[in-house]
């Protein structure tokens, strides 16, 4: 089992006051690093919110729709009950069908309510009877079922939702992927901006670096002074940006069933924990980017 060396981490965070004094703080690069990390963390919160929300949506659509189908029976009112009973019998003997039930009047009214209002007289309207079919894990053969229904229940039409379910699930999955790609791009841009700031700081302190090298400082010692400073700035900036992002997400309308996707843009349950990772990840990116920039600059010195 690999144990993190906490003493090294503590030494890194606490730092070496003497080394810190030798490398003077540079105001512009300090502000640039902190601001970049804060802005990128803020964007990362939204990218993460987008990704987790679309992930939830894809899962919900997939789970809710993947194993359900509908049979619509359109027949004269005097034949409707008989055809419904016939269809249910067919379904009872169809392999891959877990349950099948005819929707009652209240359920059918609820389905029509968004379009016709609550007072729609379902009883007096010639609307088709709906049968909800839930598949087993193996599922049924839709083409075979359609042929059987065509022979035994002429007014029945099977709708297995495939036609419109797949593009929706695909779109949600792509949206989730887009969120993760955005996170990667944000990390890359953060690394780029911190590298530029570190290079500017190293250039501004070229004389300091050269003198330290001349009096016997090892590259690791010089690099550490810069790396530590930039890592802590990125960490602090990212923490502030994450908090601001969380606050902004909390200001969004809460998720409601009728609100659709946009009101569900946020974090639920354990997905909040992802946010804890943003500041340390920004610090890690800064650590790697500044270390690489410092090593490259130092190699060019005698």
């Amino acid at each position, binding site marked *: 089992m690999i144990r993190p060396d906490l003493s090294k981490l503590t030494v890194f965070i606490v730092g070496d006051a*003497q*080394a810190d*004094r*030798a490398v*003077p703080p540079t105001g512009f690069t300090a502000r640039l690093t902190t601001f970049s990390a804060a802005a990128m963390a803020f964007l990362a919160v939204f990218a993460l919110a987008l990704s987790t929300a679309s992930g939830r949506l894809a899962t919900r659509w997939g789970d809710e729709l993947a194993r359900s189908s509908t049979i619509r029976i359109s027949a004269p009112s005097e034949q409707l009950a008989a055809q419904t009973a016939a269809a249910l019998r067919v379904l009872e003997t169809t392999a891959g069908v877990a349950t099948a039930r005819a929707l009652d009047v209240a359920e059918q009214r609820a389905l029509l309510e968004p379009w016709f209002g609550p007072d729609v007289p379902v009883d007096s309207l010639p609307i088709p009877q709906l049968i909800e079919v839930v598949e087993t894990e193996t599922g049924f053969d839709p083409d075979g079922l359609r042929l059987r229904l065509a022979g035994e229940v002429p007014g029945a039409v099977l709708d297995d939702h495939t036609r419109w379910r797949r593009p929706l699930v695909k779109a949600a999955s792509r949206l989730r992927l887009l969120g993760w790609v955005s996170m990667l791009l944000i990390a890359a841009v953060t690394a780029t901006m911190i590298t530029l700031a570190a290079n500017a700081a190293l250039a501004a302190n070229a*004389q*300091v670096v*050269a*003198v*330290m*090298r*001349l*009096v*016997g*400082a*090892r*590259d*690791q*010692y010089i690099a550490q002074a810069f790396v530590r400073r930039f890592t802590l700035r990125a960490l602090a900036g990212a923490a502030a940006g994450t908090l601001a992002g969380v606050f902004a997400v909390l200001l969004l309308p809460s998720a409601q069933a009728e609100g659709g996707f946009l009101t569900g843009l946020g974090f639920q349950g354990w997905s909040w924990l992802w946010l804890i990772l943003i500041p340390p990840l920004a610090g890690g990116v800064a650590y790697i980017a500044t270390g690489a920039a410092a090593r490259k600059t*130092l*190699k060019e010195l*005698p």
Partner: protein
Amino acid sequence: MQGWRIETLLSLRHNRAGICRGPCVIEFENVAYSYGGGELLSDISLSIAPGSFHFLTGPSGSGKTTFLKLCYGALVPTAGHVRLLGTDVRAMSRDDIAMMRRRIGVVHQDCAFLDHLPLADNVALPLTVSGRDTKDETANLQELLGWVGLRSRAEARPPELSGGERQRAALARAIIMSPDIVLADEPTGNVDWEMSQRLLHLLIELNKMGKTILIATHDLALIRAAKSQVQARVLRIANRRLQLAGADL
């Protein structure tokens, strides 16, 4: 500098004649150095014994500073071999060079200070970068500043110092790690005669404690003054080559 790490300093071998009969602290073997296309130094061979005193002279642009840079690993020869404290510079890693510089004190022509730090911190910089706690070295630091006559200027920033003070501070920084070798590049270039004599006196004192001293200078009067007080070899760079200067000095 009565008590300042005197035991350590005196433990070095003395060889006032400068002739290297045992292990040499600096060795050049057929060394050449080129900047771009032009060769600045050519076919230089030299051995410097521990505890010896050397002057390096020559006209401006003759390569004195380049020679010194070869002596502390800031440059690597384009041909030949430079061995510092027994190790070929080419075989050294960057960390090895950094460690080696803790044993070679350098007084740079421009002093090379960190202007944002007070003088005491600048002098203590070699201790700082080697990871030693300067608080533990406060007494030694104060004694060293007193030795170079700068105790009262400990908190001054480098831009506030005079030329002579800067040179003495640079010397103090060069020797704070108790190095085996002290290299000085035109240490009296920006100071008056009285101050140059004072600096020379400090360098001679260091040599008496066993330090190997190599001073690059074009100040012949300084060399003459030194030769009356210490047994020194005078090297001259002329036409890209190193020569032993004659009795004219």
